[in-house]
């Protein structure tokens, strides 16, 4: 079934970046972009326009064209909780003309249902970032540290929130609850905004979510960051401990990278590996992604593929253990 062969052309119209507006100094500093076998490269995401991965890709291609000589088009293939976008890419040619923006969603979508194609039909190419996943509470609430939160959940009953059901955040909260041996209700919501309201009005003790979804409240000092599930402390919050620092071995890596159809040639992958490293070092891009609290976490193809496989194994195990899937 390949009905979506034609790209989101009209949508892409505004996204076609053929290269004006690069300042002269940037041109002088940057080496010439590497030749690429395709004039147009389609980047597929399951996000709708304006959603998480869509915003990530749009910022990325603005800088990427300095390093790869091609025109990048973003195609939003929504629906089926992400399954449809996986099919779109898996059915594409494995020649580097089509790539997919990976996030844990593509693992979850593959595992939750019998989908025509799964993450196994895609070849992880490179990883670029780890999102900052945080535990936050309202600034004028009773919780000043993670210890307070755990203490309440030990002595009484905690009320914790995650942005979505069947998500990495939910999984992290459940594992923290298990490791800390506490009594907490873990309530899933319909997205980060819904969760934020219930944290702000005191319905929940804490929320677990991406930093990007909380930036408005962080800026207005309405919420306090208590901890991060990331493997290391966040550069923008050096005083905030990781959950691991607090003695609970729960680590969550919300990866953001690229994947292609199975069987991509090595020379194409090599171009992307090189370009990924160069774009991550680009000072303009650095400013943009640091502002979004994205943590650069470059992984080459030979490291990324096993990483995804292991991530999928862990997720499968978690979902099976809890009976979410059989």
């Amino acid at each position, binding site marked *: 079934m390949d*009905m979506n062969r034609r790209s989101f052309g009209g949508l892409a119209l505004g996204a076609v970046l053929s290269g004006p507006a690069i300042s002269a100094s940037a041109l002088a500093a940057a080496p010439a972009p590497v030749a690429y076998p395709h004039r147009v490269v389609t980047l597929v995401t399951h996000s709708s326009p304006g959603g998480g991965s869509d915003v990530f890709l749009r910022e990325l291609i603005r800088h990427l064209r300095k390093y790869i000589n091609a025109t990048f088009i973003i195609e939003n293939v929504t*629906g089926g909780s992400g399954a*449809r976008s996986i099919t779109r890419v898996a059915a594409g040619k494995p020649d580097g003309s089509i790539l997919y923006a990976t996030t844990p969603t593509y693992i979850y979508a593959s595992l939750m249902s019998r989908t*025509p194609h799964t993450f196994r039909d895609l070849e992880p190419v490179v990883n670029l970032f780890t999102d900052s996943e945080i535990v936050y509470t309202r600034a004028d609430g009773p919780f000043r540290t993670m210890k307070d939160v755990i203490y309440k959940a030990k002595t009484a009953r905690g009320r914790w929130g995650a942005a979505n059901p*069947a998500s990495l955040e939910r999984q992290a909260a459940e594992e923290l609850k298990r490791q800390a041996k506490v009594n907490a209700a*873990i309530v899933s919501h319909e997205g980060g905004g819904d969760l934020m*309201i219930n944290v702000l009005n005191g319905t929940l003790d804490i929320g677990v979510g991406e930093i990007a979804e909380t930036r408005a409240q962080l800026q207005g000092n309405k919420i306090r960051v208590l901890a991060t599930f990331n493997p290391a402390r966040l550069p923008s919050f050096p005083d905030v401990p990781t959950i691991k620092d607090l003695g609970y071995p729960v680590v969550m890596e919300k990866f953001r990278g690229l994947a292609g159809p199975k069987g991509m040639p090595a020379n194409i992958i090599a171009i992307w590996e090189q370009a990924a490293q160069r774009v991550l070092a680009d000072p303009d891009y650095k400013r943009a992604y640091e502002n979004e609290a994205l943590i650069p976490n470059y992984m080459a193809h030979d490291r990324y593929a096993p990483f995804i496989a292991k991530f999928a194994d862990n997720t499968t195990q978690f979902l099976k253990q809890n009976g979410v899937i059989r």
Partner: protein
Amino acid sequence: MNEFLHGLQMLVSTPLVFVAIGGLVWGILGGAMPGLSASITMALLLPFTYTLEPSMAIVMLATCYIGAEYGGSIPAILVRTPGTNSAAATVLDGYEMKRQGRAGEALGISLWSGVIGSLFGLLMLMTLTEPLSRIALLFRPTTYCALGILGLSVIASLSGKSLLKGCIAAVLGMMVATIGTDPVDGVSRFTFGTADLLDGVAPIFAMVGLFAVSELMTRSGTSGTEIGRQEIRLRLPNFAMMKKLWPAQAIGCVFGTLEGLTPGGGGAIASFLAYNEAKRWSKNPERFGKGAEEGVAAPETANNTVASTALIPLLSFGIPGSNSAAVLLGGLLIHGLLPGPRLFEENTDVIGGLYVGSLVATIAQLAVGFLILPVCLWLVNRPRPYLAAFIFALVVSGIFTLNMALFDVGLVLAAGLVGYLLRSFGFPFLPAVLGLVLGELVESNYRRSLQLSGGDIGIFLEDPIAIGFLVAASLIVVGALVREWRDATSKRKVST
């Protein structure tokens, strides 16, 4: 007010007027296509705004939202198909007016009510953003659950002849709402393993199927008796009519504001509640469903009010009040703008442009309506065979836009079959639509509430707003039962 003055200057210094009208026209066209909801229409426009100045981009998206909320009423009135979710309540009296040959009048009322709603919402946005934004924070899972129950209680007045059949239709709608990923636990329900159903059945699919497809089926082969005596002229309400409409519009403004502030239902709950209340407070409630002008005015005022008031929680917290506001949030983020209190301090051009642009669009709405509505009226007066063929073509094309899947086209045709069966067995559609729209809101928030309290239903008593909603809901239900009982006894008297 500073922002507003700044915005006025932008009228001459920037292409604000063109951008606002462009967004509006796009929105009306998209909203009028059955299948393209307001949020999809905005998402389609989003890429075109990348190249604009941030302030212009936001104006374009906001005016598109206004246009789409209005545009949804056009097919609701003319071909019995709500273009957007929130125009579903408009079908009842709007299409009935069209059947009576009063399409031009109905379109005029919905246009006028849309303008009133937009103006009121805009006034709220400009003057009361700060205090109103606090209301959004008062809504907890218990409150949402109660709001959903209040919405469901409206079934009583949408059921037509038989309350029992209305309830059955509502249950069927709620059953459809349970298809897809469980909102609390994330397991798949009734998806039969296919990924196509993971996101559930979008209410717009059910509506297009239930209304448009079943209408085409029912009228198949009829020569279209109502054609020929349609007036082709758009008629805005005269002064006497305006006076008659204002209470219904006031009700619409109140519910629209409330709904816009609370993330969740979009404009659909507001328009149903507004319809219900307008009927209850009307001097002639029996005219509702038979072409009452207020039956068009109340929901159309409500959903246009939502288009402006949904921006209040969005701009003050970055929390969208509807799917469409979520697209607008995406637009803000893409242009590097972060909603929140600082947006008002640091980006006066964005805020000012938004105020003035929305105002321009609201006024332009009247002019644009005058230009395009006669065309629409002319189109629906074509010979019936051609009209039916093109409505069908529009439906299958519009539905495809949501996910780009032929599966969805099949889903809509199946919904058409169900609609036809419901109709021939005398079941009303609107309770089914209501059940579908509200089922998940009620279920997920009820479960969340009990999760929070550890299974204690007493948590609802800690939430005064929820208590208020639940009391209102029970009053509506008791009132409907009393009416049903009274009707039944009086009928028995007549028959004996």
